[in-house]
């Protein structure tokens, strides 16, 4: 079966510029949270078909730590922060001064810290997009999930009634103190959200 190829978001596009502003906002918020200098870069940004997400760093059955933010406005959508277990542990240590639980598992405090990070970084992206498109985009409370990536993505698509071929993958790299952590965000917009936000930015 033929499938659309992944489409990198061009440098200089309004969408990329908006998300780069979002990264700057996220860095300031993350520095306040950690009390330490944070470097964060937008490593990758492309529109990908849903099943192409599993051809990158993570497989469909990869167990990942994920935080979901539901977007309530403009038809709705989801923002999903995902990371592997090692990255989750590293972030836990950074954010909480964290001592993992037995077997390196995450404690309730660690999960709370990850949700807070997802909230501030995700909200920074959403605020930057909302400002650029002159709309309101409010996220829900963050929800933490530890499950297979494909199981979560398909459920988000079902919940939102999203057609499966328009997912924006935002790959970021976050460095703080001695730790380098890769965080990937998935932006799963409804058709109405694409038209309200990505349309005005010239990337719909």
């Amino acid at each position: 079966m033929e499938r659309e190829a992944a489409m990198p978001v061009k440098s200089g596009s309004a969408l990329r510029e908006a998300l780069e502003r979002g990264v700057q906002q996220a860095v300031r918020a993350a520095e306040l949270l950690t009390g330490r200098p944070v470097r964060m870069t937008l490593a990758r940004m492309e529109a990908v078909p849903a099943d192409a997400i599993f051809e990158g760093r993570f497989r469909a059955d990869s167990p990942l730590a994920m935080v979901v933010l539901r977007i309530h406005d403009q038809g709705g959508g989801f923002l999903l922060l995902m990371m592997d277990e090692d990255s989750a542990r590293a972030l836990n240590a950074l954010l909480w001064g964290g001592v993992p639980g037995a077997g390196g598992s995450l404690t309730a405090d660690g999960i709370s810290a990850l949700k807070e990070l997802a909230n501030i970084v995700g909200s920074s992206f959403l605020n930057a997009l909302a400002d650029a498109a002159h709309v309101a985009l409010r996220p829900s409370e963050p929800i933490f999930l530890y499950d297979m990536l494909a199981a979560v993505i398909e459920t988000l698509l079902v919940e939102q009634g999203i057609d499966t071929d328009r997912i924006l993958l935002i790959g970021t790299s976050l460095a703080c103190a001695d730790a380098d952590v890769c965080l990937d965000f998935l932006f799963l917009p409804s058709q109405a959200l694409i038209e309200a936000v990505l349309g005005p930015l010239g990337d719909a």
Partner: protein
Amino acid sequence: MRSAVQYRWVNLGIGDIVVMAASARITTVLGSCISVCLFDEERAVGGMNHFMLPAPMGSRSGTPGRFGSESIPELVRRMAAAGARRGRMVAKVFGGGNVLAELSGAGSVAGRNIEVARHCLLELHIPVVAEDTGGSHGRKVDFFTDSGKVLVRAVEHQRFVMNR
């Protein structure tokens, strides 16, 4: 020494329906979606679907693989076309995990997907011989079409997450 069976590996995506009359391992990952595995032991024909939603809003969708009410009858038709007989078919049903329970609450799509799978199979007089549905987790399902056997794997939540 017995030689190992060479399985053709098939990755089943959302909305797909696959029927095989040869040795194949059909794999999919399920959240709130459902997979029905059908098997006719005498003809060694196996088939599997992966549907998202219980039923379309209108009378017919045009994308039958996405809706349980259309995908299951279509799977049965394709099984019959591959030589299976409905009277010999047995079903195994998987998925319907309410992965986003915190967001979607009790009235989730996952629960309605499970109901439509059971209802369709009952109407088609196909017995359900195994089922692993519901809960709040995803599943990886591997279906072996020459034997009808199924492997189901879930993430061990407690291994990584404490105190929840």
